[in-house]
């Protein structure tokens, strides 16, 4: 199946011996000049690339306190060194967060510090050249911006900030990942990462309605009429979810779940053909303007449709964009009744607690469920109002709709969760080797809980996690059907039809 060695599942995470260059050959495809031009970057690397590179770097150093401070204060204590899933899986030292950052720090010393300018190599300063740039391109696209390193750093140094800056600097000289920048372009022009035009969206949503209806009919329930309303002015809720929910499996099952929740709770809601994407790859590439433009569609749609609030579907970095960044990028949202976007999990749990949803846990009895904390939700946001709610709320939902829930090793949950291996713009097929390997720490923990407790459902609240694990599970000999969404479980258990007043 693979032309590389798939890690063996032992149920243990073992820190490997260092193996320089082990993942040097894994590189994303480069974006074409026309695309870069369209996105207002340099079309391609010209002869003056070094000057442009340094200008870009200077600009970022002026604009981002995180980058400036992090480049200065790292003491190379090594606490982060064995915390990155890509390092654990490959042993490539460049995947140690501190050594990944060293790619930028060595350039920073050379051109932006007195010592580097004066004594160069003795101050570990490095001159820019093609080789170094190529290393940048390799390894800054082998970081999934998951922030796990930051948790263990005595100063909270977040490699994601460095990676985002590095990608932006490279883009400004025309060196960028095809996958990421194509998606940014699609999101800016068509409104979603997949590039679905309104008629495609509408026909898909209609199809999902039929699916829901048919499935209900199979169990003898008719005439429920669950709708996926489109561009309904005056609806209470605008649901913004990753476009993967309109295309891929198991994503689509969570979409069915959201629709059924809204229907059953009697909430008037709508999808938008204009804001048809929750995800925001502008974040992954560290470009503020593109991130803002992509995010703006959501708030334009909310204003145009005169909704009262915006609810985000199951997507990790979308939630980060909406929770942490939206208010800065395009806020404040005075035109909404509820100014802050809300996560679908918070909404669903509230409804469950109010008794507005009747759940038949036995519908999920074939599953022994475990939950994987998605990096962006875990380490960049919260879901409810209290710190830590991002961990408890999804678990409470699962426990409300499933009889069998088991927890993976707590050392790999919550703030210490591992990335799926495909986040931060790494979810592309040409780097499948790093994706399969990067999933290894989480796969070890899943295999362990499978072995000990018979886990057979891997529940998620992130579109990237879902796509990544369905792709990666077969490499490890597991069925892709074991991967699913939290609202997929809700969808299974939700008792439809007549309900008592709430």
């Amino acid at each position, binding site marked *: 199946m693979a032309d590389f060695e798939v890690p063996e599942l032992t149920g243990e995470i073992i820190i490997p011996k260092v193996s320089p260059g082990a993942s040097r050959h894994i590189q994303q495809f480069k974006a074409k000049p026309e695309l870069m031009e369209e996105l207002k970057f340099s079309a391609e690397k010209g002869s003056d690339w070094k000057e442009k590179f340094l200008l870009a770097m200077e600009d970022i150093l002026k604009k981002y306190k995180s980058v400036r401070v992090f480049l200065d*204060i790292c003491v190379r204590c*090594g606490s982060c060194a064995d915390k990155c899933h890509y390092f654990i899986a490959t042993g490539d030292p460049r995947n140690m967060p501190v050594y990944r950052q060293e790619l930028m720090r060595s350039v920073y010393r050379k051109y932006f510090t007195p010592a580097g300018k004066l004594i160069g190599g003795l101050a570990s300063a490095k001159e820019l050249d093609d080789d170094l740039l190529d290393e940048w391109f390799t390894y800054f696209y082998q970081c999934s911006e998951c922030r796990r390193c930051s948790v263990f*750093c005595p100063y909270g140094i977040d490699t994601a900030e460095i990676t985002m800056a590095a990608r932006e600097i490279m883009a400004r000289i025309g060196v960028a990942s095809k996958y990421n920048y194509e998606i940014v372009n699609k999101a800016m022009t068509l409104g979603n990462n997949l590039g679905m035009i309104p008629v495609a969206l509408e026909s898909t949503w209609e199809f999902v309605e039929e699916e829901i209806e048919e499935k209900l009919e199979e169990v003898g329930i008719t005439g429920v009429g669950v709708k996926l309303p489109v561009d309904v002015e005056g609806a209470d809720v605008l649901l913004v979810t990753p476009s993967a929910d309109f295309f891929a499996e198991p994503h689509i099952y969570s979409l069915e779940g959201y629709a059924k929740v809204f229907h059953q709770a009697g909430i008037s809601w709508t999808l938008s053909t204009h804001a048809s994407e929750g995800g925001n790859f502008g974040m992954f590439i560290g470009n503020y303007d593109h991130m*803002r433009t992509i995010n703006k569609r959501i708030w334009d749609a909310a204003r145009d449709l005169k909704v009262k609030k915006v609810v985000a579907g199951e997507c990790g970095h979308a939630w980060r964009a909406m929770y942490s*960044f939206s208010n800065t990028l395009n806020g404040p949202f005075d035109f909404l009744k509820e100014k802050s976007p809300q996560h679908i999990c918070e909404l669903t749990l509230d409804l469950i607690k109010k008794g507005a949803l009747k759940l038949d846990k036995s519908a999920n009895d074939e599953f022994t469920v475990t939950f994987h904390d998605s990096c962006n939700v875990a380490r960049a946001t*919260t879901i409810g109002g209290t710190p830590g709610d991002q961990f408890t709320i999804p678990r409470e939902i699962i426990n409300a709709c499933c009889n069998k829930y088991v927890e993976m090793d707590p050392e790999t949950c919550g703030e210490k969760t591992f990335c799926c291996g495909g986040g931060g713009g790494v979810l592309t097929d040409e780097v499948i080797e790093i994706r399969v390997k990067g999933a290894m720490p989480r796969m070890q923990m899943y295999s362990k809980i499978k072995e000990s407790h018979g886990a057979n459902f891997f529940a998620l609240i992130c579109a990237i996690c879902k796509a990544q694990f369905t792709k990666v599970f077969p490499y490890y000999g597991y069925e892709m059907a074991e991967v699913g969404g939290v609202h997929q479980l809700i969808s299974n258990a939700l008792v439809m039809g007549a309900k008592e007043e709430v």
Partner: protein
Amino acid sequence: MNGLSSVFNLLAYLAAAVFVLGFLSKVVLYFKTPSPLKIPVTPAPTTSIGVVLRLIPEILFFRSLLKGGTTEKILWLGGWVFHVSFLLIVLRHLRFFTYPVPDFVMSIQQIGIWAGLVFPIALLILIVRRFTNERLAIITLFADYFVLVLITAIGATGLMLKYITRTNLVDVKAFILGLVTFSPTQMPDSTMFLIHFSLILVLLVYFPFSKLMHAWGVLISPTRVQVDNPREIRHVNPWA
């Protein structure tokens, strides 16, 4: 005052100036550089008081290091003992800078001596781990050894001054007090003191331009000091 003393008095003022101005310029630079977005690493406090409560254990007990494995536990031990004993040693030295010596400084003289004795052990841990651990060997730069060796040399010469080549402390105090009261005077007649003192000046000059700025960084790192309230209070990006 002899020539050597004049030179060293001058160097001391220069070093102090470089340290203070260098440090301050970095502080100002960091302060002026904006944080465009809310980036606290969560779970994060939702109030300013919460942030203070988050920082205290980070600063006093290096809390994040304790989240790691064995390697980090060893680092924690070496690092924590190093920092605490360094602090105690510095506080003990205040007796050379003050007249009359405050009670507080007097009261920590003994503990300061003990700190001086464990100090080299902590430094040894910090140095040895850098070449015995494979991952650390790769990430360690010349600068990392430089600063460790520099501080070890400062500690070693200090211990020599105390236990082997004892110096006339009255002279030392006169010299230091002369410096701090801006009435420079003769240096103590001791080569060991001269070395000890010179190395400290090197450390002062080196400080603001090195990773030692982590001392300030830990107080301002955006992922740790930001309040996690992006929905309640709009965080404004000054450059957008």
